[in-house]
């Protein structure tokens, strides 16, 4: 699956991301260039193309600097992290072939991955969600996510960052 990038254009290096350029003394660009605001990155892990499609558009629509990538099962997700990639947020489905969400979450936590991992599942019973949470999730929601819930998740990310 190809990487999806949010529609917003890249910000210039003296971006307003940190707010400093706006609050500067107005004498021009400082000698040290402020780093470009880092985009929030989301990894969408689900074997269902329909869900990957919905969540990819959802992420692009949530506003702000957010980009997404997809993985069709837990093993692909783990391999991405192993290859050196990192993501701020992982939306993890439960039931997937090859490696399911529980196995993938445990593996990522064992690797020391501290990204926010949010379970997204059609299992709705509390006991089922508890089982998924116990694997190392930060939170768990029913799928598909709504824009409101995704915004809340990403907002938590920005506060913790």
């Amino acid at each position, binding site marked *: 699956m190809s990487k999806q990038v949010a*529609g917003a254009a890249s910000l210039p290096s003296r971006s307003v991301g940190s707010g400093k350029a706006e609050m500067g003394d107005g004498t021009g660009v400082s000698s040290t260039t402020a780093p470009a605001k880092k985009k929030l990155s989301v990894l969408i892990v689900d074997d269902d193309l*329909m869900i990957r499609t919905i969540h990819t*558009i959802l992420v692009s629509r949530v506003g702000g600097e957010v980009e997404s990538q997809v993985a069709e099962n837990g093993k692909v997700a783990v391999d991405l992290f192993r290859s050196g990639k990192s993501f701020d947020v992982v939306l993890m489905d439960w*039931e997937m072939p090859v490696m399911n969400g529980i196995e993938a979450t445990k593996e990522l936590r064992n690797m020391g991955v501290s990204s926010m991992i949010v379970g997204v599942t*059609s*299992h709705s019973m509390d006991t089922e969600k508890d089982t998924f949470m116990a694997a190392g999730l930060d939170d768990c929601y029913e799928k*598909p996510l709504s*824009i409101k819930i995704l915004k809340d998740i990403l907002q938590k990310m920005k506060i913790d960052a």
Partner: protein
Amino acid sequence: MERNNQLQRQVALMRQSLFDQGYLDEQFVQLEELQDDTNPNFVEEVVTLYYRDSARLIASIEQALDKSPLDFNKLDSYMHQFKGSSSSIGGRKVKTECSQFREYCRTGNGEGCIRTFQQVKREYSTLRKKLEAYFQLARQAGPRGAASRST
């Protein structure tokens, strides 16, 4: 222009009836809200993926129902996926029948599964026909064919 307005009214009425008759729920509206000029056919694309998922799952369930003895865990797993997909596009009646089927799986009621599966297929077939007619009319009506949610 007048004809286009008329078509758009028909599209709006058709859309509303899908909700009023219980075929669709709020999740369909969530999908519509993701559709815009950069993804003008998003809802129809997602629904087309749903048809593809459904064909595969229905075939798998049919095969599984032909086996003896019935593997209720496998049947439940397939129907769980089908229920999830149907829920993702707002297919309310299909989702309800899927839940009933899963109840029968839980209690190991093979006859109940077989009977309910016919209802699942019927509801799915009805929903698919209605959605295909809706999208066809929406395309004829043009870009504003998918009318905004009625208040």
